[in-house]
């Protein structure tokens, strides 16, 4: 997987939202776009990684548990290695308690995580804190 030249993330760039549940994706998109963020959805982690490889994003919001072989934690790991500019621009969403390994990873890297279900204000404040306002 070859990468395009890295660009400093700006608010003009979309936020990559990796979420397999369409209703949740719709809600996240509505909440973020109403706050002025651009959103590029991906229905699976694999699709998300494909988009990451070819495009520039302001940040990444990913569900931890996603269908397919690749999950949110894998996306996190990939970014740590291949997209240093996005290293601290990741927000994970968990549907239930993730396994203890993932939890330990999150704790070590300090990646923010929101648990479903969450309130819009709570979510937006974490996004603004992590990525900055658009």
């Amino acid at each position: 997987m070859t990468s395009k030249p890295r660009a400093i993330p700006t608010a003009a760039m979309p936020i990559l939202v990796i979420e397999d549940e369409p209703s949740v994706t719709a809600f996240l998109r509505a909440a973020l776009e109403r706050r002025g963020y651009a959103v590029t959805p991906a229905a699976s982690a694999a699709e998300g990684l494909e988009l990451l490889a070819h495009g520039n994003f302001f940040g990444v919001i990913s569900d931890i548990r996603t269908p397919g072989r690749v999950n949110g934690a894998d996306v996190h790991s990939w970014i740590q290695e291949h997209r240093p500019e996005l290293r601290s621009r990741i927000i994970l969403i968990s549907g239930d308690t993730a396994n203890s390994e993932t939890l330990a990873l999150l704790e070590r890297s300090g990646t923010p995580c929101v648990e479903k279900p969450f309130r819009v204000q709570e979510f937006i404040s974490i996004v603004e804190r992590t990525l900055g306002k658009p």
Partner: protein
Amino acid sequence: MRAKQRSIEQSVASCDNALQKLFVGLSVSVNADDQDAIVSEYCKKIRAFFGVAGACYCKAVSADELLCISTDGPMAEDFAGTLLSTRQPSVFAGAINARRTIWENPIDSRQTPHSARSTPRAGLATPVIIAEKVHGVFGLFDKTAERFPPNTIADLDILMALLANRLETAHLSQQASHYRQRANNLMNLALDSTRSFRIPDFVQRFTARAAEMLGAGIAALVLFRGAKLESVFVHSDPPIDARGLEALRSRLSELALRPASQIPAGPAELAPDHPLSVALGSSHVALTPLTGSTGDLLGLLCLGGRQRQLAAEDRNLLQALVSHASLTLENFRLFSQIEQSKKQWVEDIDAISDFIVVHDRLHRILRVNRSLAAFIGSQPSHMIGEPMSALRSIASQATAALPCPFCQDASAPAEENIHLAKERAYLISTSRIRGATDDDWRTIHVLKDITDRREAERRYRELFDNIQEGLFFSTPDGRFLEVNDAMVRMLGYSTREELLQTNISNHLYLAPERRRRFLEAIAERGVLRNYEEPLRRKDGTILHTLQNIFAVRDAQGAIVQYRGLMLDVTEQKHFQAQLQRERDFNQKILNNTQSMILVLDTAGLISYANPRCFEAGYREKELLGHRLVQWVSPSHRSGFEAALETTANGQQVNNLELPLRRGDGSTGHFSVSLSQVRDEQNQVNSIVVVMTDITDATILQAKLAHSEKMATIGRLVSGVAHEINNPLAAIVGFTDLLIENPDVPESAKTDLQVILQESQRTKEIVQDLLSFARQAPARRLPVQVNAVLRQTIKLRGYDFSSHGVEVVENLDPGIPRVQGDAQQLQQVFLNILNNAYDAVRETGRPGKIEISSLRHGECVEVHVHDNGPGIANPDHIFDPFFTTKEVGQGTGLGLSICYGIVQAHGGEILCLNNTDSAGCTFVVKLPAASESIGATVPEASAEANA
């Protein structure tokens, strides 16, 4: 004698014619040997010549007696047989005393014998002298002296000289004849002995001859054999009567029994009063012993009826006769012995069933025994002189052309070979005797029919070779003399020869001392039965053998051989070892198993109980001989009896669960399996009962099942929670967006708030579910339980006191720390406290909650005791969604979550209704942290964790 004859002839020549005529008449008449006839003729002719009335001749029969033996003429005829004494004076006595002719006229008739009718008046008496001895007196008598002419005396003297001469000649002639007779008898005796008479014939003849020769009227010969009377022979003339014979036999028998010292050494005269003399009725009895060459007594010859005593000459003759007879008897006996033994020898040879044939150098049969002759169909005597080829019928075809079918090497002194002919086998032993002449060369063949023996040998050989057991003959120095194939195979050798060359001690025995032990054992006992000895095969593997051996000894008793039979028991040995292992194994199982194993007989009585039964508290006397069913709780006895019945009928019963009285009287829950044991006839003869106390296991199993149930629910809940959270996230999110939306009317926003509120509740339920489902505690750190308890109490303290619920703390400061997650443990305790709070509030009574901590073994226990209403189903209180509370008051997951947390900590949570008062008690048992056992840890450190 010749000179006398000449002088008489001169006297006669000078006589006259008449006298010369008388001489001639006297010398040619009568038998010259018969003295009586001569005397009688002289009396007759001289009386006639002188013409006198009487003439007589008186013979001197002893020194002083005369017997008138012949008379002639009337004056002398009554005088015959008269005995005269020469001591009384008479004309005869005068003639003897004067030794010349006496003429008396007249004579004294009183002193002179005469006839009754006429008395002599004159007499002449002339002595007849032969060899200077008076033979007798010749007398002439007449009435008057005138009848005697003048020359009478002179003529009478010449005549008497002539008579004397005639008598002497007659005597000599008689003597000569007598000696001739004796010589003849002796010669005949010698001839008798050489003729092959039988002993009785010889003895009969000898006895008769001896009697004859020695002038005995009766002769008896008694023969001995050893000290035994053999036979008695009697010769008697005239014949003796039966009674006399019997008396004689009995006297002789008595004599035979006398000791040898009482038997005379040579011819002896017996006294007239000797019993034998009496028996014979004879005064002159001679007894002579017959003695063998070695001096032993062969017999006794007894001669009686003799007229006179034994003369020296008779003694010599007798001695000679008995010596001769002794010799002959001995010879007879020896000869008869030889004959006897020869006869016996032929009988012996004939009695032998083996064939015997003797032939000479020209292969002519000299002798065959009866069995051979019978086999040929002939008589032994008929075959003598036949050629040996006559025996071809028992010869094999191959040797038919030879002169003797049995001779192989005629020069060998002895031969032995086996001869096969017409389905018979003979062992021919040949001996050859060589002599100086052809007649002395003899070849003896003994044919032994060994057909049966060979057949027997063949059978034994076959048995020896083909038997599957090893057979051997060996020597004390460790070599095999003979082994069979089975033995070779058993020991793994390729050939018999190879095994025969093997040293037993070095190669077969595992160690020299084992061989020594064997040698000692067999030397002592002679026979070893079922002797076990492991031996080394050729390839080095071990052969286990079972041997039966006996020792063969020589005449001195030294062992020369061992003979024996060997069985390969390697497999049995292995099997035995395996059996032993199995037995040990079974025994170990029986002894060490945690199960109680009993054996019941068909009547249901206990005949065996393994050690575990007694370890479990049962006593031997309570079990053995008693019925097992008595230990079964009464409610289950019929079921147990039915199970026994089922088993006895051949159907095994497994894992029958029964309440049983234990040895200590308590009742336990047992799993019982029954299986039947069958005897050789396949009849069930006993029942094996295996019983396991599963009381604890039953509880454990229930807990395990519960724990499994919990885990399953946990996984289910986790999945459900995830699925709920996604739509819930959308619901909450869009509701928030709607509320933010200024276009939405306020009234709708109130409803939206309700949606949010219920969504929030849903979220909490899901959160609880997830907490319950969370499998492993996140942390494992040493936790001070008392600190966690105090903190928890503090959280709820205000609420409790404001609602009048008394909280009593009874914490043991010495309890060790536990390994775990303080927050989770706090959640557990909080849940329990909340539960207790809700319970005591239900009753309306003043509530009291007592919280205590204590150490119990390796565990820390926390007890939360309340005085609430107690719990209807304490067993189900930890099940998820089980709640006693009203709907909407709880999710029913709280205690399930507690259960999961405590389980994950390796501990245990229980809920027990109080036995002494109302309410219930929750017990949480947590294992003490290993590094803190026995150590008291400052409580402050726990605060930090909490």
